[in-house]
């Protein structure tokens, strides 16, 4: 089995605000393996960003608070490290890319300085060596005229180019883990594809693990090795890409799949999951998804479902997997999609990963 590089166990994060306690993350557990890409998907507000910032301990405290759980990395529990120890991990061993490249660079500092800052912080290099390294990094992320670009400011770059710079900063010290929080959401479609391509490319070259956060299942299919589906602060289903795409078990995953726009099918109208995510100030009793779940069972309103194991790598938290539950099939749209994914994989000649 491949080496586990990061283990998150039963992580709970709350925000103490005026009105009470927002339970943004309510027991998240997952492992990250060396060299893999784990996608975390879910509607906006499901706690993806909070989880990922918590891994880097970037959440402001107060109002945020890690209530419970551990984050194990290189034998250390990150939730217990001092701020100073965290600083030597951030940017060096674990790096992060944020959603909006338009705002994630300092507007009054040259690109070069911003990259060199990260290099000089963690590596014992002279300024000249750091500059050389920064230029290399810019070339690595596909920015031409790197030497000239070093002296420029963020506003002189396009959105896609800025995101490349952000990636360069994140790669400055060859991190073991790269967390990308919706890195392409703010970009238009063609640029989006280029950035995804770049990330895959870099991963191949440098071999780090990636946690790829998105609300768009479409992106996941050709980026990720494994997928975790998040809802209302919990992981409700986790498995390999193939398992999630053609053997999804959780009705929420079905909803997400059904609402995916497909390129070859000019669907009349996009499906969207009815209702809205629960208020995490007062999370409902039982399964948080029940009020929106057409397949809800009586028990869903009373008891939270545990993680049921589907295969070695595939788990889902829904009572539908209980032996007493009625056997339900995913809705027709989803079944059709599942079939199409299977066909695509078959046509490519590969056998399902897993």
């Amino acid at each position, binding site marked *: 089995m491949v080496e586990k590089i990061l283990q998150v166990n039963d992580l709970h994060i709350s925000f103490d605000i005026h009105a009470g306690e927002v339970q943004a993350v309510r027991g998240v*557990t997952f492992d990250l393996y060396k060299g893999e890409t784990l996608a975390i998907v879910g509607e906006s507000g499901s706690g993806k960003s909070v989880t990922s910032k918590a891994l880097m301990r970037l959440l402001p405290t107060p109002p945020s608070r890690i209530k419970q759980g551990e984050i194990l990395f290189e034998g250390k529990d990150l939730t217990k490290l001092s701020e100073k120890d965290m600083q030597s991990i951030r940017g060096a061993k674990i790096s992060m890319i944020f959603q909006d490249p338009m705002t994630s660079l300092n507007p009054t500092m040259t690109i070069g300085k911003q990259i060199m800052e990260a290099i000089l912080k963690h590596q014992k290099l002279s300024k000249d060596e750091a500059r050389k390294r920064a230029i290399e990094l810019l070339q690595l992320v596909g920015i031409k005229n790197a030497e000239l670009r070093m002296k420029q400011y963020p506003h002189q770059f396009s959105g896609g180019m800025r995101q490349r710079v952000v990636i360069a900063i994140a790669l400055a010290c060859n991190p073991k883990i790269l967390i990308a929080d919706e890195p392409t959401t703010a970009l238009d479609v063609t640029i989006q594809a280029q950035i995804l391509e770049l990330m895959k490319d870099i991963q191949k070259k440098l071999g780090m693990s990636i946690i790829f956060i998105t609300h768009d299942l479409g992106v996941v299919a050709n980026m990720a090795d494994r997928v975790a589906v998040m809802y209302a602060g919990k992981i409700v289903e986790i498995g390999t890409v193939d398992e999630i795409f053609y053997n999804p078990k959780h009705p929420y995953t079905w909803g997400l799949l059904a609402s995916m726009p497909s390129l070859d099918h000019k669907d009349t109208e996009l499906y969207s999951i*009815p*209702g*809205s995510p629960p*208020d995490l100030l007062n999370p409902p009793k039982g399964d948080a998804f*029940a*009020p*929106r*779940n*057409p*397949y*809800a*069972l*009586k*028990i*869903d*309103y*009373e*008891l939270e479902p*545990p*993680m*049921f*194991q589907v295969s070695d790598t595939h*788990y889902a938290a829904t*009572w539908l997997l*209980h032996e*007493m*539950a*009625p056997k339900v099939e995913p809705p027709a749209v989803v079944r059709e999609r599942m079939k199409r994914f299977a066909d695509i994989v078959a046509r490519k000649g590969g056998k399902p990963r897993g």
Partner: protein
Amino acid sequence: MMAKQQYEQLSPEWFQPAPPNVGEQEKINRPSLTFWQDAWLRLRENKAAIVGLVMIIILTLMAIIAPMASDRTYKDQNLRHAKLPPKIPVLEHIHWLPFDGRDANGVDVYKQRGVKEYYWFGTDDLGRDLWVRTWYGTRISLYIGLLAALIDLLIGIAYGGISGYYGGRVDNVMQRIIEILNGIPYLIMVILFILIFEPGIISITLAMVITGWTTMARIVRGQVLKLKNMEYVLAARTLGAPTSRLIFKHLIPNVIGPIIITTMFTIPSAIFTEAFLSFIGLGIRPPEASLGSLVNDGYKSIQTYPHLMIIPAVVISLLILSFNLVADGIRDALDPKMRK
């Protein structure tokens, strides 16, 4: 993962399908407050703003009632009663309070001169009742504040609205005019106008009409421009969605919010300007009283009769402070983004 055993005794009955009732969906969501209810709730939680509001109410009531309730007027002179220190019934017995009718040397001036009446805030060098004059001056301050707000609302909104609504050349010209007006120091405009029209409340009013509304005009114009753009967006995508609700829930608050905030900040700065002008002798002329001119008069005898300066100074500061607190509170309540 989770221990399976603990779920083993579940009754099969619990596994009956129970899809949610879609109609109930809306009720599950927290009752959504309207923009104004929400803002009011936030304002109510802001203690400083509430203190300010209460102080404004008290000061306003005093300004209205005190001069009416007294049998002396702001200009009655009584030289026999000149320069009396403050003396207030009941409070006169609390010795550390400066309301016992004693002067700086501890002499009970009332007894010494055989004055039977009480002058709560004392009297000035012409024997005028400072209590009445202070509250009379507060009236003038409030009048100026109200007037400034009115000018903002009338001229500022009209100018900004027209400029933003028509856009193009009209907007361009109107904006250049504002830019020039802004280049001229406000105070200097006021002083020039007062020189032409003689000091007094009318001159101050006039000067404010000419110069006091540019900030409001700029803000309203900005909002109107934004609103225009939003209308296109709305038209494009609200097929079916109730436009009226969008207008009432988003557009109106968007425009009215900044208008209220700007107005609220205009008031204290207008009150300050009047007090300042009266202080340097360009505002209200004697025998009328303004808080600024009272403070100025008080200075002349600061060493011997400090109350003449301190009392109106405290009132004008409280007045401006209260309006600032309320303005801050309203801004925070209407614009949660600005609240930090």
